[in-house]
């Protein structure tokens, strides 16, 4: 594989989708910082010091919040391990962006016939489809992670600054907390898991994008849903005629969830093979590291890899389709 060509292909994808992959998450990140940060700063600095604080569902109670060192350390622990949670709207946006990106990636170039220009250059169909899969599974998530990290960090510092106006120094314990530095690394460590889980969905969406003559969205969503309905109908029919229940429904539902939901970050927590133990409470806060462990544990399941393989096969099919799709 030619890495120079790949670099340019990735750059080309970024030029084309800069709006949805960079400017949109940036705008959301700025809004998050302005609204949440502004509210927190205003609330903490203009009103009383709270008697209890709830951070992502973890409540720290007591009147002594701002007073004892112990309480401050506890808040710092919680904040430093959970602050990236503030970026969740960005990951919701990411899901929508990747979904629409994959559906358009191989369809739009056929619709506007620019495929004829790209194909006049020495760039193979394999490289092109691969560059689009990499953009969906690595480039877009990395941009969102970076923006999410920066926005969360800013929010954290705004919160600390607001505390500081009431004479409570949160910067010290916070900066001393190893979780502050480990959290972004943990997020990054989840990326390989994400790629494995996103592969079936990215493969499916790119396949539809390469195949559909029109309305790729309708095909991409319609085919799995119609399939689900047919399986349901068969199951009902089998049950009504008194036959053995076929037990197909769970498989069909899983297929639809993987094909359409695989690009959702953290989707693996909703599958029962990889049920997370929940957020374990550690000595001083919560054990976010267990999330990473639980995520990797889902890779021990053979089904996950079989689906990833199916995703790769669909990418290959998308590449073959692009080779000879004649738009007249």
């Amino acid at each position, binding site marked *: 594989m030619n890495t*120079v*060509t790949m*670099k*340019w*292909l990735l*750059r*080309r994808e970024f*030029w*084309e989708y800069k709006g949805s992959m960079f400017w949109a998450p940036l705008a959301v990140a700025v809004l998050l910082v302005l609204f949440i940060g502004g509210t927190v700063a205003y609330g903490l600095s203009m009103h009383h010091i709270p008697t209890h604080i709830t951070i992502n569902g973890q409540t720290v109670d007591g009147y002594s919040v701002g007073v004892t060192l112990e309480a401050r350390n506890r808040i710092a622990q919680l904040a430093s391990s959970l602050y990236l949670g503030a970026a969740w709207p960005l990951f919701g946006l990411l899901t929508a962006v990747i979904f629409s990106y994959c559906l358009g990636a191989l369809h739009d*170039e056929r619709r*506007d*016939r*620019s495929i*004829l*220009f790209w*194909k*006049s*250059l*020495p*760039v*193979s169909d394999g490289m092109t489809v691969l560059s689009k899969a990499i953009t969906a599974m690595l480039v877009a998530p990395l941009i969102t992670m970076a923006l999410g990290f920066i926005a969360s960090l800013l929010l954290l510092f705004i919160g600390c600054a607001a505390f500081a106006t009431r004479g409570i120094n949160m910067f010290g314990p916070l900066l001393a907390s190893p979780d502050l530095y480990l959290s972004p690394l943990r997020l990054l460590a989840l990326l390989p898991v994400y790629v494995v889980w996103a592969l079936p969905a990215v493969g499916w969406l790119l396949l539809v994008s390469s195949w559909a003559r029109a309305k790729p969205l309708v095909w991409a969503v319609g085919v799995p849903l119609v399939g689900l309905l047919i399986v349901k109908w068969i199951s009902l029919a089998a049950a009504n005629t008194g036959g053995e229940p076929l037990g197909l429904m769970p498989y069909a539902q899983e297929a639809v969830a993987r094909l359409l939901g695989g690009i959702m970050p953290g989707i693996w927590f909703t599958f029962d093979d990889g049920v997370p133990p929940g957020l374990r409470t550690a000595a001083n806060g919560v054990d976010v590291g267990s999330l990473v462990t639980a995520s990797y544990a889902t890779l021990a399941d053979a089904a996950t890899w079989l689906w990833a393989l199916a995703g790769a096969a669909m990418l290959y099919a998308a590449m073959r389709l692009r*080779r*000879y799709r*004649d738009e007249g």
Partner: protein
Amino acid sequence: MSSVISAKGLTKRYGKRTAVDGIDFDIPAGRIVGLIGPNGSGKTTTLKAALGLIPFEGSLSVLGFDPRTQRDDLMQDVCFIADVAILPRWLRVKDAVDFVAGVHPRFNRDKAERYIAATSLKPSMKVKEMSKGMIVQLHLALVMAIDAKLLVLDEPTLGLDIIYRKQFYQNLLEDYFDEHKTIVITTHQVEEVEHILTDLMFIREGRIVLAASMEEIGERYIEVMVSHDKVSAANALQPIDRRTVFGKSVMLFDAAAHGVSRQQLAALGETRNPSVADLFVATMKGSYA
């Protein structure tokens, strides 16, 4: 490898319709070939087959490669403009130059920038801000800067005004073409390309009806301005086409087909070589009926 493109029994069917019907042809290196035919005659289909854009039947070798199985190798040495105004709307001029320079080992960046400088294109301009003519200018600038062994141009100047069209063909001939390159052009504006062509191929209903070099055509086809008193004598020699210009009969003769000689024709009136357009119209008679 003597031929740049060599086709044997090349056939392409779209469902029941046969777009290209078992054609054979050879294009040697160092030629500028005009592939000329009415709409739907199979010109574009033939070119698409040669460029590996569609599957086909029969055998076809382009620069020694099979476009079906060796397209990636083929594209190192081939460039084409398959249609006008197909650059994506979001592309900027400078990004387009960067991208082609990045992926194409035979791209000459200075040359492309020189062509672009001769137009009203600005580096930061996006395709969606351009007129159709400007999009074509950008596309041509990019393609002309690629040192390909085979250049395929399918209606390259559609939508361009006459001044730029003339200039394009002049650049193509003076700046681009040399004895190691081969150019295949299809166009409706035959009169603009006939001076630069070395070979002609007429295609009609999926078959090649005429394939010859311009010299052969000059020897074979003769147009005569027949004087009034010799019209019936001229008709007896079976002209392939006749028309009337300012009351005078102009007849077109195929010296190869009916064994008429130049001397015989000179006796009938003033002789000259027909234009490609007139030859085309005469050859294609009936295709529009």
